[in-house]
């Protein structure tokens, strides 16, 4: 087992045994689920909505390069600098260059999972730049020096007491149990960051080819502030976020809000096409849009896995995943956790480091039923498993399955295999659950079922005489 897989097992086991932790995330997820179901029920035809959304995103993928060219042309025409970053390191370099060329020192950031993916904050800190997260959840985990717990709700795992203690320790604020007061503390501290920051950095949810715009969804207003006050604005967006038409947003935005946050629509859905125009009184003097590839164009050409790029990063698969509910976000040790991460991480990055995530799934299918763009996540996980077992087979596992096929295909072998198993079972109680028990992976936490002397095949033989 490689290091990542080993660490995952340990972290997962730790959280599984931590009933307090599980209760906190369980309560948050249940609350979300009730709200989400209510919002889904408000749609006249949710299933048709999923069909249409899947079709729109698929269209975006099928026509990826031409749409990106149209987007780039239209953005550029309005004075936006557009870059294509082949890798995460390239994207970090582009951001650093923009900061260097403008003598910038601080950057205020709004939510961007893509920036987590490329480890942007670390790259900036290494060069001595300050990068401040302004989304409340991201701000909290940044102060705690830990990664986000969830792609939509980064601080889902924390109680108000923990946040109060954190603010007291890091910001010197008065302790309080009141979520409103805690929010106001963050608001006050972040205010000066917006006003003073040289650069405003945002992620994005969609890019509209038809009109050459970047669409950003949020509730807090921090992204809009990052896009209004600083002189320079940078947006990092994965190339797969492209949609053909402006009209597509009229469906995708309410769907994203419904399953992502249990809202009819989020508070601010803003479209940016360029820097401040000559007839406008404020706004950034420069607008830079970085189109991030980092393996996406390669995936888009892969007939088996390309549908994963339909993902709109709503987090709803994560919210219904029973594994996530038991092990939490940090155990994945991956930018993208849950079902989406378990498919994407081995494909965007490397199979060896992340394949264990594709196996850490009971294939229950809840994620597929919830996905607003109808990605067949369980099937893609199975295909990741096939890829892993074909290209990096585990010797004894492969041998075991070869032996099993012999056992199953030859009636005589199967008959005597069962008999021998029944006999061996007699001695099993001596070692059941202990380290020498070959079935310890089961018996450590569960009682083992019993093989019967007379199998169904025996009973049937007698019955059909």
């Amino acid at each position, binding site marked *: 087992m490689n290091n990542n897989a080993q660490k995952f097992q340990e972290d997962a086991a730790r959280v599984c045994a931590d009933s307090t932790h599980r209760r906190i995330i369980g309560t948050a997820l249940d609350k979300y689920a009730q709200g989400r179901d209510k919002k889904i029920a408000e749609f006249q035809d949710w299933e048709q909505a999923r069909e249409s959304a899947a079709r729109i995103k698929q269209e975006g993928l099928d026509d990826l390069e031409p749409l990106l060219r149209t987007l780039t042309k239209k953005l550029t025409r309005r004075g936006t600098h557009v870059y294509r970053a082949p890798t995460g390191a390239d994207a970090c370099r582009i951001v650093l260059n923009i900061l260097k060329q403008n003598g910038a020192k601080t950057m205020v950031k709004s939510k961007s999972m893509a920036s987590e993916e490329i480890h942007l904050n670390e790259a900036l800190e290494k060069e001595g730049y300050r990068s401040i997260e*302004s989304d409340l959840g991201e701000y909290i985990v940044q102060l705690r020096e830990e990664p986000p717990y969830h792609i939509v709700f980064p601080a889902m795992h924390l109680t108000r007491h923990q946040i109060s203690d954190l603010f007291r320790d890091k910001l010197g604020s008065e302790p309080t149990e009141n979520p409103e007061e805690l929010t106001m503390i963050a608001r006050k501290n972040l205010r000066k960051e917006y006003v003073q920051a040289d650069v405003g950095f945002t992620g994005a949810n969609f890019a509209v080819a038809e009109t050459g715009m970047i669409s950003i969804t949020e509730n807090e207003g921090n992204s809009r502030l990052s896009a209004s006050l600083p002189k320079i604005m940078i947006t990092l967006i994965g190339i797969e976020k492209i949609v053909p038409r402006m009209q597509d947003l009229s469906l995708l935005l309410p769907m994203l809000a419904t399953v992502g946050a249990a809202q009819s*629509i989020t508070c*601010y*859905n*803003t479209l940016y*096409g360029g820097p401040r125009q000559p007839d*406008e009184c*404020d706004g950034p003097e420069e607008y830079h849009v970085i189109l991030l590839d980092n393996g996406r164009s390669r995936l888009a050409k892969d007939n088996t896995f390309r549908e994963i790029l339909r993902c709109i990063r709503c987090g709803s698969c994560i919210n219904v995943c029973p594994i996530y509910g038991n092990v939490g976000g940090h155990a994945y040790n991956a930018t993208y956790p849950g079902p989406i991460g378990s498919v994407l991480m081995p494909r965007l990055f490397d199979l060896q480091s992340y394949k264990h995530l594709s196996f850490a799934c009971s294939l229950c299918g809840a994620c597929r039923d919830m996905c607003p763009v109808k990605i067949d996540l369980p099937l893609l996980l199975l295909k990741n498993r096939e890829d892993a077992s074909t290209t990096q087979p585990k010797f004894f596992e492969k041998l075991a399955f070869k032996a099993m096929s012999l056992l199953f295909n030859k009636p005589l072998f199967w008959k005597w295999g069962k008999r021998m198993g029944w006999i061996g079972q007699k001695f099993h109680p001596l070692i059941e659950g202990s380290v020498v028990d070959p079935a310890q992976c089961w018996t450590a936490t569960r009682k083992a079922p019993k093989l019967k002397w007379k199998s169904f095949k025996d009973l049937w033989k007698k019955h059909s005489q």
Partner: protein
Amino acid sequence: MNMNTVPGFKEILPLAETEYQAMIRQFAVKSAELTTRFFHLFGIEETIRTLKTLALQEKWKSLASHHTNLTHSLVDTLNLPALWTDSGYSTEEMERVDASVTLCDALVAQTGSLFINSRTCGGRALSILPPHHIVIATPEQLLPDLPTAFQYMQDKYKDDYPSMMSLVTGPSRTGDIERILVLGAHGPRKLTVILIEKPN
């Protein structure tokens, strides 16, 4: 505007009223859910009275707005120091105002939303920085649903878009602490929408 050009999302999305009075009712219901204060008023005089009441209740010392006949006809009567963003402004000064008054592109009854833009609504910060954002709208701006609203923006601006267009739905909020809803995260804590009918 040709409503027939808007494609089939209308049958999929939540039900939207299309008759004017029903749209007003739907916008009012959605606003209440969002904690947006919605006033449906008749004439400038009534609007001025409402704004004066708000100014008193909230103890406004100054506000911000952008130059249009309509905004001037309202803001000037309040006799308060006003910051006009059109020729530029200092962020420090904008930070001190108690409220902003802007026009909008459209209202959306289906969701209780409104569209604003950076060209004709006083810039990017005016509607997001001050703690109370007041939006002034007129009847022809009330649209039934999101597909119609997006189509409207496309038809209105054609290829000459403002650099920013924002669909605003309610005051700013967050659920990041234990998924408990808190208003006024970074954007305005209060949103007021005033729809002014011509007086009878």
